[in-house]
């Protein structure tokens, strides 16, 4: 058991032979896929690695990436959250609407509290009312989404606050603040999942809830907390997007829920729970972002992009199921 194990699944003990076995090829297949994508990407679009383009890719995918980190937690614990797009939009409109009266910090705090409550409601419905998470978050997604429209009167919220756009467009040490935030959240997420009791408990409960419960793990509390986490991360993502565009709108969530789930499963985190890692989500995000960037640069129709991405998600999940079967 080597200490560098990045997830509780890695089997440790080195040797070149290990890296050639089928399991590892399957396990790290997504990394090779990403490398391949970079090679083809740079051929199709030579400007891919330009610093400006890289910053652009990353800051554009910051909101999705932040939500995806939280979604990784939810999926590892064998949950599901479809309400993130609505909470995201709610965060965006509240942030834009409250920026003037409360100031930026006050507005941000409000968003975090509200989105935390939204997520906690999801957690309560899933763990205490035992509603299937798919249905529960489909329902609350409608509730929160409706609330965002009601709150904003379906109108774009444009604050006068001069610094409103700082979160989305400001820079720190030469790089956009949104990229720093993305990085910090990825690092913290990876650390919590792999090195803390909480993270380990998530894997346990996703892998076998009954075993986790019998081990004395507070399964309801931990499962519920993952929804609170997606709530807050969605709110944060919403704030970043609203800030970048200088406006908060109730339809900003779009297909975020499915996009975030796509990012996580493309990286190789299983929908069946108990397995997965944050680095996988990072690769998944980079794959989607690079693909979008290359397609955009080639002026490929977004509808075509949609079709291609759909196939990629299905292929990723089918591959995961296949890999599990041959491992069993």
């Amino acid at each position, binding site marked *: 058991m080597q200490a560098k194990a990045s997830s509780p699944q890695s*089997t440790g003990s080195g040797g070149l032979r290990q890296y050639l076995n089928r399991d590892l090829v399957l396990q790290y297949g997504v990394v090779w896929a990403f490398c391949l994508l970079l090679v083809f990407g740079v051929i199709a679009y030579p400007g891919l690695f330009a610093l400006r383009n890289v910053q652009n890719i990353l800051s554009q995918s910051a909101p999705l990436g932040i939500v995806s980190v939280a979604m990784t937690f939810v999926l590892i614990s064998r949950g599901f959250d479809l309400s993130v797009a609505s909470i995201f939009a709610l965060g965006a409109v509240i942030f834009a609407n409250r920026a003037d009266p409360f100031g930026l910090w006050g507005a941000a705090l409000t968003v975090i509290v509200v989105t935390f409550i939204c997520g906690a409601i999801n957690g309560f419905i899933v763990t205490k009312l035992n509603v299937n998470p798919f249905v529960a978050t489909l329902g609350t997604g409608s509730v929160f989404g409706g609330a965002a429209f009601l709150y904003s009167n379906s109108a774009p919220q444009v604050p006068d606050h001069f610094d409103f756009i700082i979160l989305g467009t400001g820079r720190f040490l030469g790089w956009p603040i949104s990229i720093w935030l993305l990085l910090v959240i990825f690092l913290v997420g990876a650390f919590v999942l792999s090195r803390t009791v909480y993270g*380990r408990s998530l894997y346990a409960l996703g892998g076998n809830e*009954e075993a986790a419960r019998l081990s004395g793990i507070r399964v309801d509390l931990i499962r519920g907390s993952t929804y609170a986490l997606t709530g807050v991360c969605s709110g944060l993502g919403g704030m970043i997007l609203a800030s970048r565009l200088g406006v908060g709108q109730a339809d900003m969530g779009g297909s975020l829920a499915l996009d975030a789930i796509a990012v996580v499963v493309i990286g190789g985190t299983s929908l069946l729970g*108990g397995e997965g890692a944050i680095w996988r989500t990072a690769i998944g995000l980079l794959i989607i972002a690079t693909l979008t960037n290359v397609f955009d640069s080639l002026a490929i129709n977004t509808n075509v992009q949609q079709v291609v991405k759909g196939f990629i998600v299905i292929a990723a999940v089918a591959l995961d199921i296949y890999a599990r079967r041959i491992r069993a």
Partner: protein
Amino acid sequence: MSDTTLDRPRKTVAGAERAAFRATQVTKRFGGTLALDQIELEAEQGKIHALVGENGAGKSTFLGVLAGRVVPSEGEVEIFGQPHVFGSPREARRLGIGAIYQELTIVPRLSAVANVFLGQPYAKRGLLSERRMREEFLELRDRFDVSIDPDTPAGALSTADQQMLEIMRGARSGAELLLFDEPTTSLAPPEREGLFQVMEQLREQGTTMVFVSHNLEEVLHIADTITVFRDGKLSATGPRTEWTKASMVRSMVGHEVTEYRRVERAAPAPGTPPLLNAKGVTLPGACEAISLELKAGEILGIGGLVGAGRSSLLRSIAGVEPMSRGELFVEGRQVPWPRRPRHAIKHGIAFVPEDRKSQGLVLGMRAADNIVMSNMGEVMRGGVLSERKIAATSREIAAEFGYSADRVGTTVRNLSGGNQQKVLLGKARFCNPRVLMVDEPTRGIDIGAKDEIMGTLRKLADEGVGIIVVSSDLEEVIQISNRILVMAHGHLVDELDQSAGPVAVSDILNSAFGVEKNAS
């Protein structure tokens, strides 16, 4: 009774008196274990045949073979003179077999009528003929003298009525050979009586019935012939009149073996205060007001048959059953009744569930992660899980249970059953329990791992841990325990002390079956 074929009076006329079933050399292997070993048995038509035996003796497997559900590894079965086709419920039905399992196969949302006609409704050009089905349902109902409302959803009926629906389904499909797997376990006495009446009626109409039962009294009451299984073999078969409860138990156990390989045990000194004291443990429907006492360093075995409530007792004390109630004293101090496993662990009570795969282990995780799971606070440094501590402590625990310390990094899914069991026990051990409750410590594992596990449990007891063991392998219970409690039908029926000398398997069975002490 030593004869292995049933008495068949008019054997001479070929074809006129076919046996309901005839099994020849039927053998069934599950992996390495021999569940059925060359069974030769035939049954006369129009009679009730009972199959009895200890847990795992092979009686249910044999019933499965008759039903066509279990495909024998070797041997043949004829049903009413025709070769049996295995693996197809439809074919079995064509041969005239109806099977009623313990887990009923009713569809809860459908009406009683619809359930009886499930899979073979009356229909005209694809449209169901409701009236005809209802008429026939009412006819069947009169015949069996029961009062089930045709329109009630089956899920709202009592278990007895649901079972009755299954029997009606069998009777209606024209089954001539009805198979019952422990039909009375979930029935109250009057419902049992009702079932027996129906069985007698069916017998009068010429239906042959085979049933598996743990209740020797009802076997003597209703069966025409009784067949005893032991260790996958047919022990003896004969007409009811030749059997008594005591002789059945003797036949189940075989030649009385008293020379067990016993694990050395040091009895706790007399006067030691109890470590654990559970009073009036009750789990509705499973166990009733059970009290037990456990001393430090003592291994308490719980004997009994499957379904006696042994697991429920452990699960209740372990806080796994929120519906349970009782009083709990740890080292003489009363603690609140545990409603969560977490609470029990806090009081120093660890529990090893019977199904290591579905309840015990996270199969996708490493052995080390599974071991430390019950007490992750132990392997932290500076608030963070320390890989080095996880490795060191899990190696230590693994070695204690005879699991190779170098394999703590292996994913549990890839381990053998024996090694998985060692990891599971290691996990329970890791939270430093004062009381360790183990449900089926050695089920489905090889003999070497079994010995190691038994040895480790004994060693833990010698270190002062109180241990409660439930096992279907009664010899194992005798082998390891200081004291044995016997349960039957959710009640504590006997306590056998082994300090004077080992008890025999037949002692436990006699208690479990309710044989009077001096009757045998």
